[in-house]
């Protein structure tokens, strides 16, 4: 398997017109990361480096193993591929090293925008972007005679017309599965209403307010147009609903638009009419109710300088223009020079252009995300008030934050 990866990656490197000698390393490189095509491309790119030992462990459970795998000395993993929400978990445990010296020595040609700096120190190098935006069926919207929605209020109005026209009983989709997905939708909607999650500069939560209630009420209004099983639907399930022709409008990840628009899993009438729109606003606000995400790589702290240098060089090569070719180009919204976007990526670029905020990189945001995901379903099921649900989420967060030492 490893040899096959190396062979494949070398092939890619050669077709990109770059000689293998471009990446010479001496040291150990061990990558842990999520499992999807773009990450495979990066790991294969890194494996094309010669002179060192490059291996990777790509799994959907990467978050459960990356901290433990980097805490030892020397660390098992010399690099973790992470997103803006999960880099925080590594920094909280102090297992990733600042990259400034390595950038100065080996990475002068990395574009400045790719460097993620926290407090003036480079902590990660980003290589792709993601965001949730509108996906819609242009044929159905034309049939009922509504314009492409730009706000959630438009979505509700369009959904009512689609239902009244008898086209679909549940025309709205959303990844509202209780837990991480539901919390992410709340984060989007709360930001869209102009909410702030914490009192400035502190770990004290502040979501039980007018914006929080408004966000929840909008979510509940949307769920009346969703399949009643919405609390069990993650992005896979709601994507399948759209491919089945049941869902007409939904807020969906840019990285999944390709699956919706390809010829697999849907009728021609459905997939050829699925179109990517921009991010939606809500409640008359101008900030989109969405968040921007990036994926990037880090270098472990508990490894020798030699291994750190090898890892840096290999990862830099794995995310360099050399990995881009016809096959890899469509796998993600690459933040790499030489990338040319396809129509499936319109949404993410629209989100960036519309000034969407990036997901907060705060040490305690993960705790709030978990607490919110666990406590909103009672409200959406009609068992308690919005204020009660928000108060529950705040209380659950505060107890967890005390345990983690963020609150006293």
């Amino acid at each position: 398997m490893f040899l096959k990866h190396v062979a494949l990656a070398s092939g890619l490197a050669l077709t990109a017109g770059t000689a293998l000698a471009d990446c010479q390393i001496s040291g150990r490189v061990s990558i842990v990361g999520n499992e999807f095509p773009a990450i495979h491309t990066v790991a294969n790119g890194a494996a094309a480096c010669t002179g060192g030992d490059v291996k990777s462990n790509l799994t959907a459970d990467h978050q459960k193993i990356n901290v433990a795998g980097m805490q030892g000395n020397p660390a098992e993993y010399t690099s973790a591929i992470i997103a803006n929400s999960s880099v925080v978990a590594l920094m909280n445990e102090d297992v990733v090293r600042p990259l400034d010296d390595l950038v100065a020595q080996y990475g002068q040609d990395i574009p400045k925008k790719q460097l993620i700096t926290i407090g003036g120190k480079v902590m990660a190098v980003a290589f792709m972007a993601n965001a949730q935006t509108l996906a819609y069926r242009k044929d159905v919207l034309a049939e009922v005679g509504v314009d492409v929605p730009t706000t959630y209020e438009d979505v509700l109005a369009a959904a009512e017309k689609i239902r009244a026209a008898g086209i679909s009983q549940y025309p709205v989709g959303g990844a509202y599965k209780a837990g991480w997905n539901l919390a992410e939708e709340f984060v989007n909607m709360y930001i869209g209403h102009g909410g702030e999650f914490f009192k400035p500069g502190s770990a004290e939560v502040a979501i039980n307010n007018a914006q929080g209630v408004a966000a929840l009420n909008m979510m509940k209004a949307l769920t009346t147009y969703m399949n009643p099983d919405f609390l069990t639907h993650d992005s896979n399930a709601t994507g399948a609903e759209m491919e089945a022709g049941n869902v007409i409008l939904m807020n969906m990840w840019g990285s999944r638009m390709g699956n919706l628009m390809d010829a697999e899993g849907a009728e021609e009438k459905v997939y050829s009419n699925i179109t990517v729109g921009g991010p939606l606003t809500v409640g008359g606000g101008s900030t989109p109710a969405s968040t921007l995400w990036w994926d990037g790589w880090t270098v472990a702290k508990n490894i020798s300088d030699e291994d750190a240098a090898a890892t840096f060089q290999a990862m830099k090569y794995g995310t360099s223009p050399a990995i881009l070719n016809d096959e890899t180009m469509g796998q993600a919204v690459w933040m790499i020079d030489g990338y040319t976007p396809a129509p499936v990526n319109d949404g993410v670029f629209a989100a960036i252009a519309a000034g969407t905020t990036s997901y907060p990189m705060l040490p305690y945001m993960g705790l709030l995300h978990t607490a919110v995901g666990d406590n909103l379903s009672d409200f959406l099921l009609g068992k308690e008030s919005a204020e009660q649900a928000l108060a529950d989420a705040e209380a659950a967060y505060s107890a967890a934050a005390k345990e983690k030492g963020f609150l006293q």
Partner: protein
Amino acid sequence: MKHKSFFWFVLPSALAMLLFIFFPIVSVIIQSFHVEHEQVIRNVETCDLFGCKQSTTIDQEATAALRKAKPLGQFAGFETYLDRNHLAVSDVKSTWTATNSWREFGSQMLNLPFYKAIGFTLTFTFVVTPLVIILGFAIAVAVNSATKALRGPLIFFSLLPMMITPLVGALILFWMVDARGIIGAALQYLAGNPELSVKASTPLMWIMLMVYGVWHAAPFAFIVYYAGLQTVSQDTLEAARVDGANRWLQIRHVVIPHLLPLTTFIALMQLMDNFRVFEPIVSFSANAHATSLSWAIFNDLGGETRQLSSAAATSVLTIIGVAILLSPVLVRTWRDFDRK
């Protein structure tokens, strides 16, 4: 047996139990009494692909010395046990004084994560365990009275639910009860309600989880009872028949008393298993409707920020729960043993 040979016989298993059961439990208990050091938060500017903004980060240098001196964190005693995400003592007190009826108190309590989890866990345990015993016994008696040629295939099919990996078995049922699945659609037809969805209703979801629990565990009870049935004395059964006992009376007065020790064994195993119900909740994506103690532990460890102390405290509470649950059966077994 000589004490010396007894010692050498049990030494390997005792060592294994010490290593793999005792020490981990001790470490979990120690963990549950500690929380992390006070985090020093610093305001910083964070820049990513999309621009710069004010943010915060943990000042690692400030806590490095503290962490080195006390790697376990701050000693917190029972603080984690008593906080809102566990026993929620202060919330329970204030709810007790603020509510006027039992009903209101109960519904307020179920809003607290621990009591919500224990509510479902106990209901699941006390509904599923007896049903598993009754159903397992019924299948065993039925298979035992089938002709010899049929028994092999019958046993194989009866054991299938237990052979299927729990996560997969639950997922199969999950898709069958979907509004467009075979069971879901049949239920809609029977109820005459095209809007009916098992996954959207809390009571139906609870029932579905328990149906799964019985389906998955009944083969275990069946195979134990079936083995037991092979040891029922044919002489006693024949004597009962001579006395004019019909089939039901034979089962009631001969078979059931004979199998009573096995029932105790199955009850013990099932109480333990069902108290840590977990897989169906994950497979059914049921956490909006039902949570269990094991699910709470999984949830604490699965988030972007791992909550080790919280998970440890829930684990210890689970162990205590199992001990309380098993104590009546254990006391009974001990008395029986003593009498002999």
